[in-house]
């Protein structure tokens, strides 16, 4: 690693939070993910929070066009992207305006001073130039002429001004690598790969990156640089993984472990589309991806694929879930194994397409006509998406049911270091197609799981008809008799309940009984875990229970809830799990609810904990 020379000091830190903010066109997501990749490879634990607008390119320089990428990296365990930031890189006045409130006092602010002209300030609706007034007094401000310096570094390449300016994010990235003593090598490799067909652009980006690094070295701009040693993670081989990537490779793994073809029927929708993009790359695993004409065709094609013997899934977000409702009911009725991934976003309707929310829980639970229970699972971290994909597939295939996975925008785009399992350590998923015509009935059930046989077309002697009309028990013939209907409704419910036999009892982290239990689900895991950890270090008798299975709920949950004087359910919705727990367990739990399209800050949780404990 390069060691900075001269008069600069080097300080060793446990942890740092950095945020890159600029225009949607400034390449902030790439800059952030490159920095993330580099520190992850180095061995830090990380959590990221990419935050970008729904518009592809909002008018340049305006507040709605600001795109940000936040990264928390540490030599210890990291649970959240961090409440506030140590270093803010702001590419223009709009980015500064939107993000400054999150910068810590005395924090480092790197600004592109080339973009603070009169016109730039006007676009951001800023009346006074913050670089000239006292707005930034409490920060360590480093105005850098990113545009001019980048152009100077690239002038000999013969690129036009626009192409040169597009490299300035790499100049800023180079500066940050210097600031945190990180090697540029992984990014150089990435640039070579990304621009393998455009060597001139590869050269330009690499030059800009190195120019940024050298600029810090030569000018000793910062006077200080930081070192954050590698984290003590569980030994193993690691990679950086986002939630959507994790779901994709999780399903490929599940299909391989089940010995089935994998079929994805999907219609592009933010923030789920990456699952389609990822899976469409894995055709050498026999993966069949179908970009359907709409959300309904996406799920119904999956039902068709499942009917004919594939591990079938569909991926969508809230508005798409709404459209798939009737078809999921068909999968319930015909008892076919499909997995539905709902990557939740702010709603209702189009809502906040690129922002996170957890408000589809009750839709997943109840959003179908009549009594149509469906198992519901939720991953807790980006890496956990992999394991949830396996678990959902296993449940779907074992019990012959549709299964819903509730991920969200934060998990989908966020990344963490993921300890890579070997293929051999992942257990097989047993699947049996019915082949014996002797005594065959399409709705004859396995006594333990209540699953019906999977009798796929092409199997001699098993010709039969299924459909959305109520079935006679066992024979599966159309049947409208009152008592049969009640029986079938109860069987479908019992089948979902039977899944509980596979769900381990839950054990809260923290005090086994005490003053307060926090119950969370989904992407809030990190923030809640960290808040509880800090509060316990202050001596509070509290615990944290995080649920991955939301339907059915774990068998001992009711008992666990009773062991605490108070129960707090923090959610990024109006209180949906809270509603379920109160209804099911008659527990007087209270909610902490945030509906801003953003994840919880640790601080918000700690405040609520203290309020509830009246400290």
């Amino acid at each position, binding site marked *: 690693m390069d060691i900075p020379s001269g008069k600069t000091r080097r300080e060793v830190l446990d942890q740092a939070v950095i945020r890159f903010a600029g225009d949607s066109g400034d390449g902030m997501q790439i800059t952030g993910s490159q920095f993330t*990749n580099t520190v*992850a*490879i*180095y*061995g830090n634990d990380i959590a990221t929070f990419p935050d970008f607008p729904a518009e592809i390119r909002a008018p340049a320089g305006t507040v709605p066009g600001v795109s940000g990428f936040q990264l928390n990296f540490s030599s210890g365990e990291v649970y959240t992207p961090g409440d506030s930031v140590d270093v803010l890189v702001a590419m223009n006045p709009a980015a500064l305006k939107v993000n400054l409130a999150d910068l810590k006092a005395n924090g480092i602010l790197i600004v592109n001073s080339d973009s603070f002209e009169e016109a730039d300030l006007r676009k951001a609706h800023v009346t006074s130039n913050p670089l000239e007034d006292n707005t930034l007094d409490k920060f360590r401000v480093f105005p850098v002429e990113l545009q001019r310096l980048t152009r100077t570094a690239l002038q000999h390449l013969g690129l036009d001004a626009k192409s040169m300016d597009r490299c300035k994010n790499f100049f800023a990235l180079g500066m940050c690598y210097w600031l945190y003593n990180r090697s540029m090598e*992984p990014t150089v490799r990435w640039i070579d790969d990304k621009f393998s067909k455009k060597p001139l652009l590869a050269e330009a980006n690499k030059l800009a990156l190195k120019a940024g690094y050298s600029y810090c070295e030569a000018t000793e701009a910062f006077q200080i640089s930081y070192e954050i040693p590698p984290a003590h993670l*569980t*030994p*193993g*081989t*690691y*990679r*950086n993984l986002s939630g959507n990537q994790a779901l994709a*490779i999780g399903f*490929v*793994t599940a299909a391989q472990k089940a010995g089935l073809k994998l*079929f994805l*029927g999907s219609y592009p929708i933010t923030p789920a589309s990456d699952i389609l993009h990822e899976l469409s790359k894995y*055709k*050498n*695993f*026999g993966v*069949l991806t179908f970009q359907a*004409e709409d959300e*309904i*065709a*996406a799920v119904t*094609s*999956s*039902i*068709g*694929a*499942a*009917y*004919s013997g*594939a591990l*079938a899934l569909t991926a969508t977000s809230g508005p798409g879930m709404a459209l798939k409702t*009737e*078809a999921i009911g*068909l999968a319930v009725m*015909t008892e076919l194994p499909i997995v539905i991934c709902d990557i939740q976003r702010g709603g209702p309707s189009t809502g906040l397409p690129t922002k996170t929310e957890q408000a589809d829980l009750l839709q997943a639970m109840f959003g179908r006509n009549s009594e149509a229970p469906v198992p519901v699972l939720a991953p807790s971290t980006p890496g956990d998406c992999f394991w949830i994909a396996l678990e959902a597939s296993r449940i779907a295939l074992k019990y012959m049911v549709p299964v819903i996975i509730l991920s969200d925008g934060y998990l989908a785009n966020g990344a963490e270091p993921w300890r*890579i*399992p*070997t*293929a051999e350590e992942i257990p097989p998923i047993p699947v049996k197609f019915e082949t014996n015509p002797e005594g065959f009935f399409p709705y004859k059930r396995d006594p333990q799981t209540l699953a019906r046989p999977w009798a*796929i*077309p*092409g*199997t*001699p*002697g*098993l*010709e*039969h*008809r*299924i*459909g*959305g009309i109520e079935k006679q028990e066992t024979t599966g*013939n*159309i049947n409208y008799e009152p008592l049969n209907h009640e029986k079938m409704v109860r069987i479908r419910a019992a089948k979902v309940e039977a899944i509980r036999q596979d769900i381990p009892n839950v054990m809260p982290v923290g005090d086994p009984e005490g003053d307060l239990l926090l119950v969370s689900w989904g992407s809030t895991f990190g923030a809640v875990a960290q808040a509880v950890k800090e509060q316990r270090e202050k001596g509070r008798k509290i615990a944290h229970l995080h649920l991955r299975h939301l339907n059915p709920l774990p068998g001992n949950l009711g008992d666990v809830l009773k062991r605490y004087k108070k129960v707090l359910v923090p959610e990024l919705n109006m209180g949906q799990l809270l509603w379920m727990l109160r209804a099911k367990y008659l527990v007087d739990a209270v909610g902490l609810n945030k509906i801003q399209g953003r994840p919880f800050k640790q601080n918000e949780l700690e405040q609520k904990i203290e309020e509830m404990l009246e400290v």
Partner: protein
Amino acid sequence: MTTTALPPLTRKDFQTDQEVRWCPGCGDYAILAAVQSVFPELGVRRENFVIISGIGCSSRFPYYMNTFGFHTIHGRAPAVATGVKIAHPELEVWMVTGDGDALAIGGNHTIHLLRRNVGIKVLLFNNRIYGLTKGQYSPTSEFQKVTKSTPYGSPDRPFNPISLAIGAEATFVARSVDIFQAHLKDTLRAAAAHKGSAFVEILQNCNIFNDGAWTGITEKDARSERVIQLEHAKPLIFGKNRDKGIRRKPDGDIEVVPLGNGISESDLIVHDAHHPRPSYAFLLSHMEGRPGFPTPIGFLRAWDDLPRYEDVVNEQVAAIIQQKGPGNLNKLLRGGDVWEVK
């Protein structure tokens, strides 16, 4: 799937023990009989047939066929069937639908199935009415038709199903009639022989809610005057005495001309169902409703040179496996940059 010698199948092999629940006198009975008599001839093992339907009277069809069958939800049969076909291209998938199911609620899926050329046979039973919901107008009902939901006449202009299918560039488009049993069976056989999407509109009577839906063309006396039967490589002739024909006009349009008086068969259009372009078939599909023109039945288009969708999808997978080698799970899990923690 097994590949042993095919046991001979009969019509009986395709009948189920389910009580047929269509109204007595419904045109669907005749279609069921035709399908049950054609299926045994097709050289397909019974277990490889899959019949997929949506919702409506016609969509009850799978229950009466002793094959694999899936009675899905309203309008979505094409998408379910596409999923089956992509996952298992070797299956013989037939879809049964109606004018409401395929053209109203499922219109989107119908056109996308056809433009993709998925190897599915689509039988659209067109009775120009909503039967199962007891008598509302459908997307094929006539303009100003009085129905339960349009007591003062329908303001909607109808779809012409075969025009729609040709517009979506379906590679096989044919029309037959429930009571023309021989013609219907021939049409079904031809559809079965087609590899790509085969779209067959079957004009069907609903004797309860729209009785006489097609009497204008099915009445014994009117039949030959008002219907033209399209056969590949034959001139376009119709009329009780085969005394009328269809001729190209200099402007590219078509016209009905009486034969004789200097106009002979050689002046008429010789039907070319195998033309790769859909424009000519579209022109023919639009004859009905034009004064003096007959309603076409038979084969409007049967061009089978386009690869089936499911084959394109699966051949791509096979090619990638060939090129990259079969997927290695450990390699997949370790994709991207990895590092060791000790």
